[in-house]
């Protein structure tokens, strides 16, 4: 159930603005890797390129051996990529359960079976008490959890999480970390996560990639990057990320 992800030379400009420039990295199958960097570094753009929201100007995206550059988002979902949105996108007019049901219907054609699958996902994320509320009425942390539940319901082999811990209390962060580690252990799912909450990064990631102004600044174990002078200089030093001290 796991898949490796390799991006090579990814470049994306928005009307002259350099969002991402020649970024390459590999997320080995079954590993948990974090993508960090200051706001505007190009992290979300990197996710959008991997998930097929728009094609890169140059560069390739590979899932294991397969070149998936330029595929549509739905095709990438079929290929095994599940992603969450930093700016959450709930189906506001549907219930929380129905939100996840839509994801579950991707691989399960029968509605009744998909509904059960969706209920499992809600339980996993601790959202079951809210199952029948409208998704639009959830608090932001719950909407972040819903994003994860929806993505997981599609049964991805690689999960892209964009700042899902933002706004969670430390205990909730720990619960989410435990859930993700549990998933990774039990299903072997590969996880690439964008995260500002260093507490979560340190607990989860075996490897950290640091982006700054569209370029890859550093790469290594959490210990290595947090001691890297360039990283401290541009990121950790002055602009202390949320929860870093916690």
């Amino acid at each position, binding site marked *: 159930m796991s898949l490796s992800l390799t991006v090579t030379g990814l470049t994306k400009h928005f009307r002259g603005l350099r969002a991402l420039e020649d970024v390459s990295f590999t997320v080995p199958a079954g590993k948990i890797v974090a993508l960090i960097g200051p706001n505007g570094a190009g992290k979300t753009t990197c996710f959008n390129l991997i*998930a097929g*929201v728009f094609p890169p100007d140059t560069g390739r995206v590979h899932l294991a051996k397969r070149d998936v550059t330029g595929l*549509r*988002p*739905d095709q990438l*979902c*079929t290929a095994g990529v*599940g*992603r969450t*949105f930093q700016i959450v*996108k*709930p*189906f*506001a*007019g*549907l*219930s929380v*359960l*129905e939100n996840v*049901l*839509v*994801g579950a*219907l*991707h691989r399960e*054609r029968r*509605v009744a079976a*998909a509904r059960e699958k969706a*209920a499992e996902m809600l339980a996993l994320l601790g959202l079951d008490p809210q*199952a*029948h*509320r*409208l998704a639009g009425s959830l608090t932001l942390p719950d909407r972040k959890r819903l994003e994860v539940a*929806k*993505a997981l*319901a*599609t049964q991805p082999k690689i999960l892209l999480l964009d700042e899902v811990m933002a706004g969670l209390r430390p205990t909730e962060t720990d619960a989410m970390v435990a859930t993700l580690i549990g998933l990774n252990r039990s299903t072997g799912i590969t996880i690439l996560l964008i995260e500002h909450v260093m507490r979560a990064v340190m607990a989860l990631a075996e490897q950290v990639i640091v982006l700054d102004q569209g370029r890859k600044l550093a790469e290594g174990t959490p210990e290595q990057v947090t001691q890297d002078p360039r990283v401290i200089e541009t990121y950790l030093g002055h602009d202390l990320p949320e929860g870093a001290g916690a």
Partner: protein
Amino acid sequence: MLTQDLFEGVTPRGKMLFTAGLGALLLLPEVADSYLISILTLIFWFAYVGQAWNVMMGFAGQLSLGHALYVGLGGYGAAALYMHLGLGPWVGMLVVVPVCALVGMAIGWLGFRFGVRGVHFALLTIACAEFTRVAFDHITALGGSGGLFLPVVGGRGDDLLMLRGSPQLYYYVMLVLALLALALCRIVTRTRLGYFWLALRENPDAAAALGIPLLRVKLLAVGLSAGMTAVGGVFYAFYYNNLFPDQVFAMGRSIEILLGPIVGGIGTVFGPVLGAMILTPLGEGASLLLEALGITLPGTKQVIYGLMLVLIICFRPAGIWPWLAVKAGLVVPPGETDLREKGEAE
């Protein structure tokens, strides 16, 4: 089993009211005069076509302001097949429904393919209907702007197969069509495709990320909606026995079609029905009243519909049905339905 599915989430009171209402409608032609029958037939027609429009906008979130196109094409198509080949309307439907579905999908494909979205897509649907209206003005084989008239054969009793006969015949046929559309929508919203439509309506980007092929799912919605509307067009042709491009393809008709669902509740299954039940009598009642007072005021109906629309947008933007249904205890409020369902499953 099937009726259980159809009435899922409806309270006993709701079921009772629906059954009583339906019973009354079935018996009504025995006592009603032909005027009342014609009004009810019109209500059924708007409930039916509103339902069809709702598939596209209410479920899949794609706004069409040109549904008169499918009314016209369906009507003209079936009328031509009847007059030139002697084919009855039901056989005609086998031709015009797929044709209209394909026309709808072609327009949809054009729009979606070239990224024409939202309001601009709606403008495209108007343009297609208007273009076709002008084209039909010049098709002399179908009467051109002078209109196409179906031969009226009287005194041979009711012929369901050829859809020729008394007002009662049309009343029952349209009632059944409206009920079928209601049931179809009720069923389709609980299927995989139905959930995909709702997801697309709520947030296309999130829907795509969950693996939904947006183009295919949109085209299926347009196709079903256009095909259903074509059936309404066929009925229209055989009921009124005359077709004028100015009338069937009119922009005003496209608007009238979508008023019912908006007033009743976009995206709800019973909304289009309720909307038609409110708007049609309102428009007709106003006309009657003015007639009785001896006043001729063209456009009264439009003004009343406009007022109604403003009231709805101000006070019940989600439509009357979602509010009324809960208020009057006709349906179980959304959340509680699922709870009960879960209880049964365990």
